[in-house]
């Protein structure tokens, strides 16, 4: 049996639309030194490194090799994993398996992206089949617009419901100094008013019907690093380590036209597996806070149904009842989430790092005002892919 594994340190850069003051290696180094300082460790204490990003955004091949001087990988074991949007969560999962294997004790997980150096949609389009898909559909937005259309038609969902998610994420981001989008004008205004302003704004351009600018995540420069440690050392490094209780993922692939737009089946299946492993029976009651990879507004309604927090079509009720706000029963994305910062290769890892902070009780102004025993994180990417990781305060059995 493997080793129990915990998160003992987290560091992230301030997320910005363009970090022109640093190159990629320096950006990585910023996250690494912050995470090491957070854990009270030096790079000499680290046994192995896992790193990930999406190659075509920066146009650098073999990033694990290229970044060695910034990541600290010189004369250390280093491995690169990459799976598109899920890269950050894939990095976290890989670091977890490194430690759980018993082969190493302390692993540094790094995710990063400099989207300002990329043509994001130009790069993402090449993920799709060159003959059948690239000329018709592809890029980050098209598939999501299809999903949103189906969801709206099936359950009578409105633009206001979508905007309710955006408003939550952007309000939460105001508490997070690291978030990319700080929409200070939103401060102190009632939620209904903010939703009305969002849907009625003439500046809120249509991108791909029904998705407008306000429905989408930004493109961000940023990096994150998380230190994973085995049960032999975790409690010596961190007073309250955030233990990994379960992880599962599904990266099923079909042509985009064959994706089940009614249900996010990968997220449903991976969540089910994680809850089964961690013996969670009533997710809404048992999970205390979530950091979910919600790249666009309607995901904040539909995907929480797929995870099993409520029945299909019931997502909007949870949102409008305030259940997922900071003071609700299940706060979702206290950090402001992906809708407020999206350095793609780091995004999934930031979810894990932020969830760990909530468990450790060290999330500052964005700390939820309740005891956090379980925190759920997800990653999204590829062809409607899902990575799910559950963190907890108690050491797993």
């Amino acid at each position, binding site marked *: 049996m493997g080793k129990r594994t915990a998160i003992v340190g987290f560091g992230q850069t301030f997320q910005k639309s363009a970090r022109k003051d640093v190159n990629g290696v320096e950006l990585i180094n910023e996250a690494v030194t912050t995470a090491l300082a957070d854990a009270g460790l030096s790079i000499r204490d680290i046994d192995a490194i896992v790193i990930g990003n999406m190659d*075509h955004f920066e146009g650098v091949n073999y990033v694990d090799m290229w970044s060695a*001087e910034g990541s600290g990988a010189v*004369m250390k074991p280093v491995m690169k994993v990459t799976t*598109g949007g899920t890269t950050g969560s894939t990095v976290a999962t890989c670091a977890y*398996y490194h430690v759980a294997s018993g082969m190493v004790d302390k692993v540094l997980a790094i995710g990063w992206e400099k989207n300002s150096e990329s043509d994001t949609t130009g790069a993402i389009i*090449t993920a799709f089949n060159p003959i059948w898909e690239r000329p018709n559909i592809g890029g980050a937005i098209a598939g999501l617009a299809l999903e949103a259309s189906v969801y709206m038609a099936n359950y009578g969902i409105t633009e206001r419901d979508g905007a309710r998610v955006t408003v939550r994420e952007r309000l939460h981001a105001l508490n997070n100094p690291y978030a990319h989008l700080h929409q200070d004008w939103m401060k102190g205004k009632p939620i209904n008013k903010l939703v009305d302003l969002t849907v009625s704004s003439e500046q809120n351009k249509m991108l791909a019907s029904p998705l407008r600018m306000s429905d989408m995540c930004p493109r961000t420069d940023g990096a994150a690093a998380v230190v994973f440690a085995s049960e032999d050392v975790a409690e010596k490094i961190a007073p309250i380590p955030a233990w990994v209780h379960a992880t599962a993922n599904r990266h*099923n692939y*079909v042509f985009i036209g064959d994706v089940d737009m009614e249900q996010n089946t990968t997220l449903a299946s991976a969540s089910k597996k994680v809850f089964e492993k961690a013996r969670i029976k009533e997710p809404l009651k048992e999970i205390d806070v979530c950091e979910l990879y919600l790249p666009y507004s309607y995901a904040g309604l539909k995907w929480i149904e797929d995870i099993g927090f409520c029945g299909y079509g019931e997502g909007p009720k949870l949102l409008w009842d305030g259940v997922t706000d900071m003071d609700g029963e299940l706060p979702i994305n206290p950090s402001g989430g992906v809708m407020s910062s999206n350095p793609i290769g780091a995004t999934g890892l930031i979810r894990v790092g932020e969830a760990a902070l909530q468990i450790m009780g060290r999330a500052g102004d964005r700390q939820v005002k309740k005891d956090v025993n379980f925190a759920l994180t997800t990653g999204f990417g590829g062809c409607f892919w899902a990575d799910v990781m559950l963190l907890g305060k108690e050491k797993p059995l």
Partner: protein
Amino acid sequence: MERIAVVGVGQTNYERSKEDTFEDMVFEAATKAISDAGGEIGDIDNIVTVSNDFWDGRTISSMAIQDAAGSWGKDISTVEGDGTFGALYGMMRILSGSFDTTLVVSHIKGSEGVMNLITNAMFDPIYQRSLGIDATSSAALQARSYMEMSGAREEDFALVSVKNHGNAFNNPYAQLPMKISLGDVMASRKISEPLKLLDCSPISDGAAAIILANERGIKRFKKAPAWIQGVGHCADSFNLGYRDLARSRALKGASLKAYQMAGIADPLREIDVMELYDAYSYMELMWYEGLGLAPEGKGASLIRAGVTAMDGELPVNPSGGVLSSHPVLVAGLARLIEATLQVRGEAGRRQINGAKKALAHGINGPCGQAHCVFIISV
């Protein structure tokens, strides 16, 4: 620590240009590995694929081959690097206690890319790329640096090419079996001083797959397990100028760890056969030294004395090595497959008689920046 075995292996033929798609090749390799193990896809608990967005010309290069790897409804991840690193991750995922079996599959179509541009993109975008540096021209710098340090000559490098291309005749999967002389190598066209055409590995298409299992997992299969006794990986600095290009301290680090795990004190005597990542002829001599088979600067003495020939004390690359087929990302996994076949006694005409313990080696990055070493035995 629980023991992990290789229970199934599969490779496509390696060719200059295949008509098969990525999916076709992955499906072929994965299917062969499963059938070699004597199991079925339902026996596979989780999957690790290996691919690279630059080589595939496709963002999220793992996406197109997920169905071909049989991953529907299963946990899966993707390593971007040599296949040996994928195998190591596959092994870790079992050791974590989450799975009993892993399928690791890697693919490449070198024929669909431009090697010079793809490997030029490994280098610093501001200071180095505009010089036109790529995998081969950086390797030439390393070869020259190694010659300066060791006194090895171009003729010594040529001996590696003669040996490995000759060995490839015994390997039905190899792309370039060639009966060539030292003179042929010396007379071949200059590619990048001091490297000539026959010092360089070819561009190849192909895929390879292995199945890993723990003691519980091997019971699902019919094939006798080949146990992983040791593994180690390590990276050097990125900037070529920060490295001593003539000495591979990263390989020393990786191999020492693997030897320690496997309880090996004298690799030359204790290991029966090796499969090394000889992307260029000179590399094999440098890797001898990094692996502790010869003192620093004395790698050439092994090839001159025939120690690493098929009938030598420690045959290296009976398969023909990477010089005879270079499916990038796949090549290290192919080394592990060849090592497995050797210790199983199933290597056909390239079998080293009585091979019990074998070493497989993979590299990543320019001039062998990172290394991964596996020791395997039955």
